[in-house]
Structures are given as C-alpha cells and as structure tokens.
C-alpha cells in the first residue's frame, strides 16, 4: 500500500492520456469542416484548458483562493511578447524600451523559457509572502495578496508605456494583429503536459500533504505536515503551467494588452475551474468544456431575434451566464460537477487485485523509552489564568490520565505541549530535548501526536488516505521508529470495510477510532488524546480502552489522555494527574486519586 504504482502512477497516467485523447478527438471532429471560427474557438478552449489546469494545481490541492494567477499570466504574457516580437516591430512600437529590450531577438521557444523563468521567480517571492501570511483554505490574507498582485501588474502594464506601450494599443506581433501561432502542435504538447502534471501532482507526496492541509490546516500541522512547503511547490508548478498557457494565448492572438489578463479573464478561468470540480483534473476539463460551450451558445443566442425573447437574447448574456454559473454552483453544488472524481479512479477499481486485510502481525515494535516532561507551565488568556505552574511527567511505558473539572486547563496543557498555545513560562522536554518554542509540526516530528476533543479529520479524504498522509510524513521524519503499515493501522482501528469511504461519512465511534489511528500513524513516542470517549456510551468507552491500549502497543508509544469518564480513566490509566483551576492538585494511581480529599473537593465542591 505504501507504494502502489498502479494507483499512484500508472492509472493516473493512463487516465490523463485518455482525457487528452478525448479532448483531441472532440476538437478534431468539431473542426473537421475547416470552418475558421470553430477552429479558433477550439484553439482558445485548449489554451484556456492549460491555464485553468494551472489554477487547479494550486487552488484545487491547497484550497487557497488565488485571484492572482492571471496576474502571473500577465507577467508571462508580456515577457513573452517583448522577447518574441521581432526587433523591427519593437522599434516601431516601443523604441525606448529599457535594458536594450528593443534589440532582443529570441525565438518563441526561447521567449517562452524566459517568460517561464521570470514568472516563477516572481511566484517564489509571492509564495514566501503567502506562507508568511499563513495561507490556508479560504484564507482572506491570501485573497488580498493575490488580488494585489493582479492589480499591481495591471497598473504597471498600463503605466509603463516605454515597456508595454500602455493600455490603449498594447503590443502586437504583426501590423494587422493576425494570429501568429502556426499549427496546433505546441498547444497539444503543452496541454498533455499540463494534464499529466496536474493529475500526477495530486498523487505526489507534496500534493497529498497539501490536500491534507486543505482539509484541515491545524490538524495537518499537529500531524507534522508543514503546509508552507507543499503550498510553495504547488504554487510554482501551477504558475509554470499558467505561464505556458498565457504565452500560448498571447502568441495565438498575436497581441497583448493589459485588459487581456485582468478581471474578465480571472472570472472566466475561475468559473471554468469551479463548475466542473476544482479538486479534480477531469472536472477541470469538464468545466472548461461546459463554460466554453455555454459562452459560445449564449454569444450566438444573444444576436438572435426570437419574438418574445428579446428581453433575454441580447448583448451581455454571456456575462450573465458566467456570473450565474459561478453563483449557482457555489450555492447548489460548491464542489462542482465531479467533486474530486478522476477517470483513473474508475480504471483503478477495474484493474486492482482483490484486497484482503493484512494478517495481524505480532507486535514487533520496541517500546519507546522516552520521557515527556512539562515543567511549571503557566498560561494567561488576558486576565484569566488558565495554567498555574502545572507540571506533568510521563514515561513511554505508562498511560497517564489528566482529569479535572471543566475549565481546569487540561486541553490548554495539551495545547501548550503540542505547540498550539504559547506558554508564558515553563518548558516542555522530550528525552531532554526542549520542545518549547518549536512549531506544531516541529513538535509532531519530534515525537508527539495528538487527537482533538471535537475531532478534526481530513474530511474529504478517504479513511485510508487520512492515515496514509500522516504515514507519509512519518516515513520521512520518524525513521527511527518502525512504523506499522497503513493497512495494519486501518485494520487495527476496525475500519477495514470503510477504508475507501470519506472520513466525513463515518459514524461517530469510527471517526474517533480513525483519529486515534491517524495519530498513531505519525509514529510518535507519545499519543496525546483529548477526550477520546466524549459522546460515547458506556459500552463504547469500555471498547475504547482496548482500542487505545492496543494502538499504543502496536506503535510502542506512551499515552497521555484527558477524559471525564471515570470508568475509562480507572480502566486504562497507570497514573492520574488532577488539575483544578490551572494547578495540579493531586497525582497518583486511580485508586489513590479517588480517595483524595482535595480531588473530591474540586469535583464535588465541598470545602472543608
């Protein structure tokens, strides 16, 4: 399962080829009569497909909404035009171009390379800015930064007359502004490349980690995934594809002006992306097809004269169609027509061999001998003291419970340990290594994995993939531990029949077990569990005892568990810490704790 080339490489490649051939065949059929207008429609559609695939690589995998990709397109388009237009034409159009650009004479291929390189450099800078702003799915900061890029590029293109010839006329390759691209071969080559890149990226390590972060940024980080790295990779690849598409677009039109890569094109490409399904390559292409056909249809209809329909059939119908499609899909079907379905998912299901659950392997993992220490942790939220010199120590051989009334600071202590909340003072150590001040993903990579009170799964990903992505992280950063295979963890959590279902579809108990298994997949020295039995019946929480024990045994990790359920705590814990008002008021075995007067006072409110 770790490396399943059929699923991760072969089927996607076949699927991409199939999609390309389908598009190619359709295009050839449609243009068979040699009509010039249908020919140019198809050419534009194929070029738009490249640009939208570029958007898909970033927006689809990371969930970060970018309005700036068309701004990257403008940079690529202008760079391409300025390099590729012949010097004679340039001397007439932009004689005062800086850096001696007017004399430069490059072939289209060379110009494309220059455009690609320059745009990727800009994208790298923007990518740094995005990660500094903490970009994640639906983040506002990312929208602002990318919009700013679109606007600034547009303004520069309009105002830097010496270089771009301004907004009125723009630059053109030939005096008549004819199409300059001869033959469709370059488009086909770039298109098949874009399809394969977009599809295969979804299966790469970076793509899968980015998707996990898209589903839940916080959960991804505490599982050791650093979204910034994956988002940067996705951004650079996506900008490369958008650049190629934009250069093609300019070359095909034979001219460029600032309006060509601004709001209208952003609207068009984004609508194409979301209609078919932004998380799917097949969906992206379906969206391109539907929107192209719809735009063409409405454009033709708007010129027609049908009695009684004049209120509808008039100029501007195409824009209504685009805006309406965007709005309609967001309201009625936000995931698009295909969701995240791919052609090769179907193919894979036909080709793969029957699976059987892995045989339960005898425990081979050596118990970790780690020690986790939280020393004198103090946290204030405004005037409220959440933790007051709280200390905790756990060794990997034991299960340590953390109990206390609501608001005692249990979850806050867990948050401090896993780096989600910064403490005012105190330190966290794992085997003498200081974890205080590390990022959440750094702490996870050092050997702490947690679950959440109200669970946070990667809801659109399958059960297996939830565990798989974390396993992927662990194989790189937790090599010292011998990690059980993904399918063993799936089976251990009792989720084998549900392995291909989405996490969002699981029932409550299964979701809890999946979260536990996902944490275990991180190969931690300690599992930190925040109320694993909350919302469970007595019977279920007794089962959870076995579940936690066997999971900890399987990976050889210690356990720190917060819970309210007294049966659960006494059934599973070797030692219990009792927190009240941010202080540790008692430590001991469950039996000792239950007779401790201070604990009884805290729980029952008696003062004596």
């Amino acid at each position, binding site marked *: 399962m770790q490396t399943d080339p059929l699923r991760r490489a072969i089927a996607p490649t076949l699927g991409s080829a199939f999609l390309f051939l389908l598009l190619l065949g359709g295009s050839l059929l449609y243009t068979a009569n040699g009509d010039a207008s249908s020919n140019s429609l198809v050419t534009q559609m194929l070029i738009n497909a490249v640009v939208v695939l570029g958007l898909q690589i970033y927006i689809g995998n990371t*969930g970060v*909404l970018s309005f700036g990709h068309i701004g990257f397109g403008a940079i690529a388009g202008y760079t391409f035009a300025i390099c590729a237009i012949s010097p004679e034409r340039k001397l007439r159009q932009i004689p005062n171009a800086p850096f001696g650009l007017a004399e430069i004479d490059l072939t289209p291929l060379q110009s494309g390379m220059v455009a690609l390189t320059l745009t990727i450099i800009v994208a790298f800078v923007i990518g740094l*800015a995005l990660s*500094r*702003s*903490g970009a994640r*799915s*639906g*983040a*506002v*900061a990312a*929208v*602002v*930064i990318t*919009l*700013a*890029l679109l*606007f*600034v590029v*547009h*303004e*520069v293109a*309009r*105002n830097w007359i010496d270089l771009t010839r301004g907004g009125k006329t723009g630059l053109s390759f030939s005096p008549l502004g004819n199409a300059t691209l001869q033959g469709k071969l370059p488009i086909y080559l770039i298109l098949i490349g874009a399809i394969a890149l977009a599809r295969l990226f979804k299966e790469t390590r970076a793509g899968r980690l980015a998707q996990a972060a898209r589903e839940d940024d*916080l959960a991804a980080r505490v599982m050791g995934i650093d979204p910034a790295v994956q988002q940067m990779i996705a951004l650079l690849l996506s900008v490369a594809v958008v650049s190629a598409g934009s250069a093609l677009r300019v070359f095909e039109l034979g001219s460029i002006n600032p309006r060509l890569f601004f709001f209208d094109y952003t*609207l068009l490409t*984004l609508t194409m992306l*979301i209609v078919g399904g932004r998380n799917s390559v097949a969906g992206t292409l379906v969206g391109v097809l539907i929107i192209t056909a719809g735009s063409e249809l409405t454009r033709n209809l708007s010129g027609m004269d049908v009695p009684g329909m004049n209120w509808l059939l*008039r*100029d*501007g*119908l195409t*824009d*209504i169609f*685009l*805006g*309406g499609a*965007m*709005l309609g899909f*967001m*309201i009625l079907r*936000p995931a698009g027509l295909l969701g995240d379905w791919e052609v090769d998912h179907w193919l894979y299901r036909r080709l793969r061999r029957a699976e059987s659950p892995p045989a339960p392997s005898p425990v081979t993992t050596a118990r970790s001998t780690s020690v986790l220490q939280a020393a004198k942790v103090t946290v204030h*939220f405004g005037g409220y003291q959440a933790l007051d010199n709280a200390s905790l120590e756990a060794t990997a051989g034991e299960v340590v419970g953390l109990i206390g009334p609501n608001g005692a600071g249990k*979850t806050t202590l867990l*948050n401090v340990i896993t780096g*989600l*909340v910064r403490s005012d003072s105190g330190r966290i150590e794992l085997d003498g290594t200081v974890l205080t001040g590390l990022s959440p993903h750094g702490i996870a990579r050092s050997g702490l994995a947690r679950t*959440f*009170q109200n669970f*946070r799964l990667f809801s659109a990903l399958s059960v297996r993939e939830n565990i798989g992505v974390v396993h992927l992280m662990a194989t790189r950063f937790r090599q010292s531990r011998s990690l059980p295979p993904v399918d063993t963890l799936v089976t251990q959590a009792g989720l084998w029949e549900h392995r291909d279902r989405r996490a969002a579809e699981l029932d409550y108990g299964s979701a809890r077990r999946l979260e536990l298994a996902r944490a275990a997949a991180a190969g931690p020295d300690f599992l930190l569990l*925040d109320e694993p039995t909350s919302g469970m019946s007595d019977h279920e929480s007794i089962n959870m005892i076995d579940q936690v024990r066997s999971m900890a045994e399987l990976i050889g990790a210690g356990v720190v568990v917060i819970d309210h359920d007294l049966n659960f705590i006494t059934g599973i814990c070797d030692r219990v810490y009792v927190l009240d008002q941010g202080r540790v008021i008692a430590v001991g075995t469950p039996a000792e704790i239950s007779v401790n007067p201070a604990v009884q006072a805290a729980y029952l409110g008696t003062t004596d």
Partner: protein
Amino acid sequence: MIELIQQIIDGLGRGGIYALLALGIAVIFGVMHLINFAHGELITVSAYTSYWLFASGFNWWFIAPAIIVVAVLTAVIIEFVAFRWVRGAPDFTMLMTSFGVHFLVQALFVMYVSANFRQFPRPGWIFDTWRIGDLSLEVFDLAVIAATLVTLLGTYWLLQRTMFGVSLRAAAEDFDTARLMGIRSNRVIRGAFILSGVLAGVAAIFWLMRSGQAGPTAGLNPMLKGVLAALIGGLGSLSGAVLGGITLGLVEVLLISRLPGGTAGLTDGIVFLLIALLFVFRPQGLITVRRVERV
C-alpha cells in the same frame, strides 16, 4: 503646515466615505463571516437610480434619500437571493459567492442598460471652498466629515442602545452562542444587511455627488476601498473598520501629494501593495481582534 492641515481634511473627507463602506462590510462579516465583495453593487444600483431620477427631473434633495432606500432594498434582495443559501458554508464558497454576485449584478447592468458610463449633474456647491486665513477648505470635504460623524454616531447609538444592536454585537462575537441565547439569526442577519445598506447609501450619496456618473463597474472602486479599509481594521472589528477607512483616506491623499509626477496613476496600485504587505506581516490586520481557534 497649512498644506498638511489641508491634506488631512481632504484625507478625512475621503476616509469618511471609506469608513462608512468599511463599516457596512465589517457588520456583515461579523454576523456571517462573509467578505462582501458585492458591497459595491449597492453603489452601482444607487448610481443608476440617481441617473434615472435626474433624467425624470428630480433634484438632489429628493435623490439623496431615495439612494438610501434603494441601497437598503438592494442589500436585502442580495441577501435573500444569494447569501442566505451559503450561510455557514466554508470560507472558499462564501468568497466565491460574493464575487459571483458582484459579477452577476455587473452583467445585468451591461445587458439591460449599457456598458457605457452615463453622466448626471453634480451639485453646484461641491467645488466651493471656504477660506479661513491661508486655509482653503473644500465645502464638500466638510460636508462628508459632518455626515460621516452623524451617521457613525447614529450607528453607535443603534449598536449600543437598542435591542437590535445588542443582538448584532452578540452575534458578531459568537454567533452560535447568540443563537442559543434566543437571538433569531434570520432577523439579525437581515438587520445587518439593512444597516450595511443604510451605511452604503450614505456613502453612495457623496461618492456619486463627486463622480457624477453611472456605469456597470461604478461599484468596483468603492467596493475595493471599503474591503481594503475593513481589512486594515481587522474585518470583524467595527471600530477597526472606521479607523481603517480614515487611515486609508489619509494615506491616499498623502501618497497622491508626495508621489513624484507621472507615477500618480499608480496610487491605487501602491495602496494595494501596502495593504498586501500589511497582510504579509500582520495577517490579522492593523487592529487586532484575534480569534483563537478553539481545539
């Protein structure tokens, strides 16, 4: 010195309008967690209303209140047609929905009116100036500042002293808890849209007095200014939005007067760039209302 004072007053005049727009956006963000990129459409609709009313022979005294009514109606209709259906949806969906509304309204005007801008008369007094010593003050700026102050005071009273205001602030603080406390979400959200309509209406009156034209994209610029100002203010914060608007106005005026000749056309780009930088280094906005995500 005199010049600086003049520029500050000019900036307050601009900033006042931005503050009203930003406040409307912040109010809606508070109750719905939605950045309303369709806020500018209220201005677009107001602009066409002004144009048609002028064409039918009305004057500004009639048109000004009519603009507010129309802006409120538009806000309520947009909420009913679009935003109601994506309540509580993921941020991505809500962002795209508000952009969808923005583009759709724009397209409707292109289709049923025209893509071209149409002019209508501006009131005669907007170019008048008052001289106090060396200081020459534009009457228009003073009018905007006064109207902004009155509107903000009214809004403040509404938010602090009325049942609706308390519900709105409670919902902005914590929507789910507010609902549990018996606040009716439909009513609060509709109220928020009405309030944002009123604020946009007041802003529209002055915006249109100055621009004197109506076109499908008339709302784009005010929308961007309002959103940027609200972003500077940290989005959820109402006082932040007002401060953000005024800051934006002042920065613009100072930039226009300080930029070397020939680059003045880049003012909007530079402002946008500055705000993007602000977001790179302070993603939570200038004025922090940091919401710690509970886990």
